[in-house]
């Protein structure tokens, strides 16, 4: 509520601020209003302090030019999209509509409609129908996975990430886009869409037997869900989901970051034990699957072990009292009844360390699953994927597991860190040496049992996964061909160095570009913004393979008008491009406005905005010329950044 005094000071501050901004002093203002000087003085001092902040250092012309070039490249890309995407149909409808409107709606100054009311009413009905029909158009702006326009949405996000240099800005964008993914997942579920792979990053809020809540989304756990790391409430978790189309979201993969924020806690067992599979070839290293605990385990309870969800094996009958007799950790009160309750029935006096600052995670007996090949059997000691497992009379052997078999072993860890098998079940018999398969390509899709890598479906059950590869990551696959299927033994995410550089395109082919003398390979994951042509400048973000090859991540072809001097300053590349020298093509054109060429696409639009046509004619703008000032783009500027 304002008082009379406030009203007066509001007016005086407005007046005085005007004069101070015009160069007057605070004192002069106070002298003009002595009766309000006491109240005004602190306000004006504050104002002056803020005014001091206005100094802006001279903007680096090179940086500013670069920002502009990036903007123009993105603008050209947008114009190109407009030409090629089905979004244009509604624009045409819009133009048609506007034409209709122009026919019936009076111009400014006219007071009457030049149309009988009946006809107008009919037109309104038509227009109303149009409004309803094009409702879907605005919806396309919020495209979801599975939509035709969805890739455009994600590509624009990649561009924004591409241009963000400051780590804080970048991480902010990543958070913003992660939030979008959450909304999309929710919308996909609500709309009953069927999508095989959705990504989701969020906070693990609740853990129940078959459900998690991640950032407000209820996720049902797939029976074969892969969980990397120890899930605790409050942890950050990166998920891959599946939407079956019934309104639910199924979690098929989750990588839980450790509480210290060190990324997904890699399964120690997987990372360290890579025994060679008997009878396998040299390249085919059979590796154990991640050891799997029966359920969520608190990080404090087993920091050195992966805690993955235990999938109850068929025929499992838990009845090994020795296992619990040695346990030092017992279920807390939050333990939800499960099929293994009998195992944990006799609690000891030792209590599990529980967290007090968050809802207690489920703490359960530590049982693990070791899945892999039986490498040796010596007495009661079996070596399964490099892990020594003790077998006793209580161990249940299912389907005659033996040396060379692939087995799934349910084990308990004793206080001396040895493992005792509760059950060992044969998964596969030894077979003839399969053909080894080894390749490197991008991960395109990941399910619980099958992944698609470089267009090939790979069975991953039982494979060692290293480095927590995500969709789009480059992975190295070692595996075996089993008839028509490829079974992975190990999949390793390749950590690539990302390099960024800028240069002139000297050669263009379907699978590569030569930019600044460096060959950049193009694959399906490479995002190209703008049209790569010989002679144009491109900014490249590329992955550098271990062998030095560059695989393009984002290639932004800059607007030629932004850097018209490039062709003059850039010496011809002394390689195969002598005949492709860029200069002739660019200099043969009017130097001012080659960017205006795309605008003819606007002309098909009918009567809507006739003013557009004349304005689309090439006209040199002073601003373009200004930014065309000597660009330091002479050859290659290469900066290596952290991957």
């Amino acid at each position, binding site marked *: 509520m304002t008082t009379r005094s406030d009203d007066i000071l*509001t007016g005086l501050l407005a007046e005085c601020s005007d004069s101070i901004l015009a160069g007057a002093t605070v004192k002069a203002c106070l002298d003009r209003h002595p009766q309000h000087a006491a109240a005004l003085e602190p306000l004006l001092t*504050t104002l002056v302090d803020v*005014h001091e902040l206005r100094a802006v250092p001279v903007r680096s012309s090179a940086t500013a030019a670069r920002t502009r070039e990036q903007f123009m490249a993105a603008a050209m890309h947008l114009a190109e999209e407009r030409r090629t995407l089905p979004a244009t149909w509604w624009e045409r409808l819009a133009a048609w509509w506007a034409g209709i409107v122009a026919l019936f709606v009076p111009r400014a100054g006219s007071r009457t409609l030049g149309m009988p009311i009946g006809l107008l009413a009919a037109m309104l009905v038509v227009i109303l129908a149009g409004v309803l029909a094009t409702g879907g158009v605005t919806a396309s702006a919020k495209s979801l996975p599975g939509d035709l326009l969805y890739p455009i949405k994600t590509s624009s996000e990649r561009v924004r990430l591409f241009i963000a240099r400051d780590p804080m800005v970048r991480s902010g964008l990543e958070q913003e886009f992660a939030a979008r993914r959450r909304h999309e997942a929710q919308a996909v579920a609500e709309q009953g869409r069927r999508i095989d792979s959705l990504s989701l990053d969020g906070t693990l809020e609740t853990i129940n037997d078959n459900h998690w809540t991640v950032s407000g989304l209820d996720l049902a756990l797939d029976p074969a869900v892969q969980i990397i790391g120890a899930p605790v409430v409050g942890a950050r978790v990166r998920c891959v989901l599946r939407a079956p189309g019934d309104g639910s979201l199924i979690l098929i993969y989750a990588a839980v970051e450790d509480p210290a924020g060190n990324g997904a806690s890699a399964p120690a067992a997987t990372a360290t034990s890579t025994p060679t599979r008997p009878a396998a070839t040299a390249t085919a290293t059979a590796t154990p699957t991640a050891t799997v605990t029966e359920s969520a385990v608190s990080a404090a309870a087993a920091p050195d072990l992966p805690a993955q969800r235990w999938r109850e094996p068929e025929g499992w009958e838990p009845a090994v009292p020795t296992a619990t007799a040695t346990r030092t950790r017992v279920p807390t009160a939050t333990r939800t009844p499960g099929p293994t309750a009998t195992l944990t029935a006799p609690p000891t006096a030792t209590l599990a360390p529980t967290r007090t600052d968050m809802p207690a995670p489920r703490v359960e007996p530590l049982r693990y699953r070791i899945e892999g090949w039986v490498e040796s059997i010596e007495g009661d000691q079996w070596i399964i994927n490099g892990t020594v497992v003790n077998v006793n009379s209580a161990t249940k052997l299912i389907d005659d597991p033996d040396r060379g078999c692939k087995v799934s072993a349910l084990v308990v860890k004793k206080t001396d860190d040895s493992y005792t098998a509760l059950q060992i079940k044969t998964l596969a018999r030894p077979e003839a040496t399969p053909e080894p398969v080894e390749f490197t390509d991008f991960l395109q899709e990941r399910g619980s049992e099958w992944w698609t890598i470089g267009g090939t479906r790979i069975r991953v059950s039982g494979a060692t996964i290293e480095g927590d590869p995500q969709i789009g990551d480059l992975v190295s696959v070692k595996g075996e061909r089993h008839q028509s299927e490829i079974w992975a033994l190990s999949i390793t995410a390749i950590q690539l160095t990302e390099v960024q550089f800028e240069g002139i395109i000297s050669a263009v082919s379907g699978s590569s570009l030569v930019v600044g003398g460096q060959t950049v390979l193009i694959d399906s994951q490479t995002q190209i913004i703008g049209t790569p042509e010989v002679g144009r400048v491109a900014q490249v973000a590329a992955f550098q393979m271990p062998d030095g090859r560059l695989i393009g991540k984002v290639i932004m072809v800059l607007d030629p008008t932004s850097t018209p001097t490039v062709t003059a300053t850039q010496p011809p590349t002394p390689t195969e491009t002598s005949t492709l020298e860029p200069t002739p093509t660019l200099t043969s054109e009017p130097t001012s406005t080659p960017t205006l060429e795309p605008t003819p696409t606007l002309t098909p639009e009918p009567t809507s905005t006739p003013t557009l046509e004349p304005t689309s004619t090439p006209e040199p703008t002073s601003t373009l010329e200004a930014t065309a000032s000597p660009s330091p783009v002479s050859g290659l500027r290469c900066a290596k950044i952290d991957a």
Partner: protein
Amino acid sequence: MSLLNSLFWALSFAPFNVFKGGNAACTENPDQQALLERASRAEPAALGEVYDQYADRIYAYVYRRVGQAEVAEDLTGQVFMRMLEAIRTGQGWRTSFSGWLYRIAHNLVIDYYRRRGRVTLVDIDEAAPIRATHGDPVRSTESLLNREQLRAALFQLTEEQAQVITLRFMDERSIAEVADLMDKTEGAIKALQYRAVLALRRVMQS
């Protein structure tokens, strides 16, 4: 009839996100309107012209809030990328373009500060020249610290208060211009300015 007429206009513009909103005043002059219309149709030349008109101003606006050249450059790029994104999705400006653009900048700055969580002082080498200290290094440093505190204090104001202070006293815009940018009356801006300065004073004292 006038009702029908209004309905007719409302319906005809509703789905197209035309920047001339129903009853909102379109503040740009006709040439500028034509330019913005071309820009809204993703015409590269028009987009470039719009960029050139606003880039330095947006940069200055952002710099004055964050005080770091690199961050300001980054955020400026993001502002214009968002502009393209908005054009792409048909969710662009409806009333004042410049006000809309400044709002984007403002929101990005706010996001940036929220993420940063705490105030980190800017590197002295990177700071803008300091006025009125006449070469006294101690005073210069003090002044720099004060400026950073003041910048941080701005983030404790409401969004509108911070915006009016920035536009008015850092960008040196007139009350009429600020009213235009913020889509408010001049009287409202005067009142807002008074409350903003008062609030800033309190934050600085606390």
